[in-house]
Each structure stands twice: as C-alpha cells, then as structure tokens.
C-alpha cells in the first residue's frame, strides 16, 4: 500500500491482526497517514518478545484479545474466531478505517467484520488515501492483474492489505517511541468469547522451502507444458546453470505436487521482481503473469507459438523444451555467465 501524505484531519485506523502481523500493518497505516491515531486489536496473546515490541509499535493503544473458556489447545486457535468480539468492540469505537492483513484468515475476517459493521470492504488494496471531501479512495487489482480498479466511499470501511514482512524483527525497538502517535503504550488484555462454531481438529505444515522468490534476481519457472519428471530435471539444470531460483505455476505445485507451494507464482502465490524470468512450458494465463509483471526481461520457451506468454514476453523461444532447455543450459555455461 502506498502513501499519500496530503494534510488531512487526523484519522482513526483500527488495526486488527494476529500478533506477528500487527507491526507491519501499523507501519502501513502510519505511512498512509503519519498523523493517524492507530488503535490495535491483537487477535490472540503475543509471546513475550512480540508483546514487548508491540508497546513501541507506534500505535496509540494496543488491546490484546485473549481466548476465554474453553481455551483452545496450543496451535488450534483461529484468528477468525475473534470476529464477533472484534465487531462488538468496533461498533462502540470511533469509526475509522479498519485495516486487516490480506491473508487467508484476514480475507475472511475482513469480509465478516464489514458485514457485521454494515460497511464496505476493499480487499487487497494497493493504495488508500483520503479525499478532500472527507471520503476515501483506494485502488486494487482487477481481472487477475489485467486492470486496476479505483474505488471511493464515505464513512467506515474495512480494508485488507499486504503488509510485507511484519515479523517481530521488523518492529522498531520498544524504547524508540511511536512513529506517529507518541511513546510506548501499555498492552491491555481483554478476555473475550470466541466464535466456536468452526473447530480445528488438526493443523499440519505443508512442505515449504522458506524460499523468498520475491528477492531472486533470476527465476526459471516450470509450467504445465513440462510434462514429465525427466523434463523437470532438465529445467532444474537450466536453473542451476543460470543460478536462478526454480519456480512454477499453481497447478504444478497444487495439483502435481512437484514443487513446494511457496514456489508458485501468481495472484494467489508469489510475485517476483527478477532481472530475468524464463518460463518453460508456461501458457501465460493472467492469474500467473500478474506475478511476473515486474520482471525486467521475460523469456518464454514453448512448443506453442500462440501461447499467451509468447505475446507478453521479450524473447519467445519456440520449440521442444527437451531440445532447447539443455542447449540453453549448455550455452549459458559455455558463455561463463556469472550465476
């Protein structure tokens, strides 16, 4: 979310997030309006380090919502279950922007809060700013990235936004004072009833690489046109030759399970910003290409010259990947390309 710091009356922003997400959203709120009065509702009890950091996150107040009886087993708590308690507190609070992280849980929380508050929702806003008449405007992506939508509203609204990396490490030190709203604040803990209609029976972590594709300078992407594991090995070798991170499209990870899910690029996955992106057997549906639009150079390798990616690339290499990919890997190595 980008900022527009046109002088405006002080706004009230309610940040509603899990402990580890709070800091990033407070930074976002204050970058959009440095004079905003930011109030935090933290969904669940933070660990001691996060709690200490939250006292200096820049918010005017931090309320920790703690689960009342029956207290959920560790790991089986859901931020979604705090929606009724949050809505009740917001209904009685000064109206303002309600800022929620654009995550799977955040999407649900945002939509349910907006409904309970009878207000609008801007899902995954890319910018929010105040209008001279006291209203608000925001932008968000449409058609999987093919367009940008501008929205306006008056009064209260819930906005979800991606806060980037907002982990405890990103917090200012507790004694640094608030960025916009004064010094350290005391955390107030309130025990609340949760919505217990949806019960977690188990939680398992999916295989992850903890890879940060968004930081990669070169990316080689596997599409559904890569049809066998032998072909996949050829593409992997090209990635090695280029010193590139290996990525894929959603069905390669989600349906075939060939790569961990944090390696897929697209509207519901990662966005990349490399100097070089090489898509092998990638058809180029907008749900994927929205994630590569910031690549400096896009290369497409495909048997199908009419694949959508061929119309959206810088260099389209047409032909059989089984021939072209090993040749390209060899040529890259022969050229002594620094990887």
């Amino acid at each position, binding site marked *: 979310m980008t900022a527009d710091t046109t002088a405006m009356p002080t706004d009230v922003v309610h940040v509603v997030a899990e402990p580890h997400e709070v800091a990033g959203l407070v930074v976002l709120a204050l970058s959009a309006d440095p004079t905003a009065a930011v109030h935090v509702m933290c969904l669940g009890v933070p660990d001691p380090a996060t709690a200490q950091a939250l006292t200096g996150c820049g918010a005017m107040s931090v309320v920790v919502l703690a689960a009342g009886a029956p207290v959920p087993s560790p790991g089986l708590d859901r931020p979604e279950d705090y929606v009724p308690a949050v809505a009740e507190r917001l209904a009685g609070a000064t109206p303002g922007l309600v800022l929620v992280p654009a995550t799977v849980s955040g999407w*649900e929380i945002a939509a349910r809060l907006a*409904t309970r508050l009878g207000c*609008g929702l801007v899902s995954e806003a890319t910018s929010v700013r105040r209008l001279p008449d006291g209203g608000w405007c925001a932008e968000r*992506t449409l058609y999987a990235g093919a367009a940008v939508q501008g929205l306006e509203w008056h009064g209260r609204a819930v906005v979800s936004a991606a806060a980037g990396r907002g982990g405890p490490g990103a917090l200012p030190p507790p004694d640094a004072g608030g960025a916009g709203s004064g010094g350290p604040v005391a955390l107030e803990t309130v025990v609340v009833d949760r919505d217990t209609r*949806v019960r977690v029976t188990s939680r398992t972590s999916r295989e*992850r690489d903890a890879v940060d594709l968004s930081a990669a300078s070169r990316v080689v992407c596997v599409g559904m046109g890569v049809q066998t594991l032998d072909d996949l090995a050829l593409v992997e070798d090209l990635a090695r030759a280029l010193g590139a991170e290996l990525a894929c499209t959603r069905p390669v990870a989600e349906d075939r399970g060939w790569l961990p899910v944090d390696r897929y690029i697209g509207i519901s996955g990662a966005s990349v910003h490399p100097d070089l992106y090489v898509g092998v057997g990638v058809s180029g549906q907008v749900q994927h290409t929205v994630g590569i639009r910031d690549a400096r150079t896009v290369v497409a390798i495909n048997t199908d010259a009419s694949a959508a990616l061929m119309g959206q690339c810088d260099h*389209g290499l*047409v032909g059989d990947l089984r021939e072209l990919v090993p040749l390209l890997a060899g040529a890259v190595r022969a050229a002594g390309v620094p990887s």
Partner: protein
Amino acid sequence: MPRAVVCYKWVPAENELRLDPVTRAVDTSSARWKVSDYDRNAIEAGRVLAAERGAELVALTFGDAGAKASQKDVLARGADRAVHVVSAAAGSADGHVTAHALAAQVRALGDVEVVLCGEGAADTYAHEVGPRVAEVLGWPVVTNVRELAVQGERLHAVRVVGGDLEAVECDLPAVVTVLAEVGPAPIPGLKAVIAAGRKPGEQVAVDALGLAPDALAPRTVVTRVTGYAAERSRVLLDAGEPAERVAALVSALTETGAL
C-alpha cells in the same frame, strides 16, 4: 429434499478485454462472458456433494439481465436448477449488496444445508461474498477449502491457510468457499448440454426478495477501471536449427544485460 446452493458469478473473459490505447480504459463489450473459473470447481464440488446427500443442487447468481445467458452452462455442469436474481443495478453492486441479495434468495429457497462459493471471482478476486453471505445468514463459514466431506449433519473440511493445512469441522448449515484444488471442473459433455435444456432456469427480480433499501445500497463506488498493458519487445525465435535459436537468445540476453 435438502438443498445445496452454489453461488457463481458471470464475468467477461479477462483475456478478451480491450484497452483504449490512450486512456487505457477497459472495454468489455467485445469479450465473451463466462462462469467465473473457480466457481466452476465449486459447482462440481456441489454436484458431488448433492449426489451424496440426495440433495437438490441450485446454482445461484446475482446479476443484470445479461447473466441469464449463464444458466445453460451451470445446468450443463450439473446443477438441477438455476436461479438468477436479477437487478438492473447489479453492475454497480458491491459485496454488501451482492451478499444480501444472494442470502435472501437462499432463505427463500428454504431447506438449504450448504452454500458453496469459489475462492474468489475471476474479475475481482476479493474473497468477499462467501463470508459475507454466511454472516448475513448467521451461519458458520469455512474458507479456502481443498477437501470437503459431509457426514450426518457435520461438515469436515481441510483449509489451506498460509503454509498450513487446517482440518476443521462444523455443523450444518454452513457456507464453504472452495479452492480450485477441491477438484477439477470437467467441460460438460454433449449429453449434459442437451439435458441442461430440459432443466429449469428461473429469474427472480431482486425487488421481490423483500430486502430493505439499505441492504441494496452499495457502500463502495467504482470510479474507474484502467487496463494494464505489458510493454515487452515480443521477439519470437521460431526459425532455424534449435542451436541457432538458442544462440540468438543468449546473444540477445547478453546484449541487453539480462545475462
């Protein structure tokens, strides 16, 4: 007979949008319209679930008169019945209005034990209407589901939440939003297309649902839609021996500093 409802959206195909070269305004007039991609997976999940439950599957949409054209497709995909809540103002509706209209029609149908929605619409991808419908109905919602089963009056689901798979259960009735991975959406065969012609497609005026004016008043207004055009050089290397094509690519990448 119990009912399962699948909500879907009728949207222009995003790859057939035209951009005004100067203003970048998006023109949908020459685009074909389609049932939103992920909603097709929801319809298939609904078809499977309804068959198991001996339930009637109702495909429900909210849209202007143009959305009537969607009913043939959703009936061919396995819905027993299609209901289109018609509003001339649907084009300016937001999630608040859409959810109230859909929820009112779910109530009007009666005996609904589950409402399915896709993970997000192909145009807005806002993940908004499913949870909103649940709140309007006062039902629990389970979002981002990749596995779904109903036993008795209890729903079991596996959600994808960040890096975790979260297994949950809740009592019916409930609203469920499903991921594409819940199951593929087959293209209807000829028999299904012919059978669709004999199934009922109904139009219900939104005014007939007895909604308060506030429920039909959008909270947000779309002020503009601007297209994005990729600025790429689009050089195709499709002639000569494979080694020549690769050599041409490497020298082009080296020249531009990409390698």
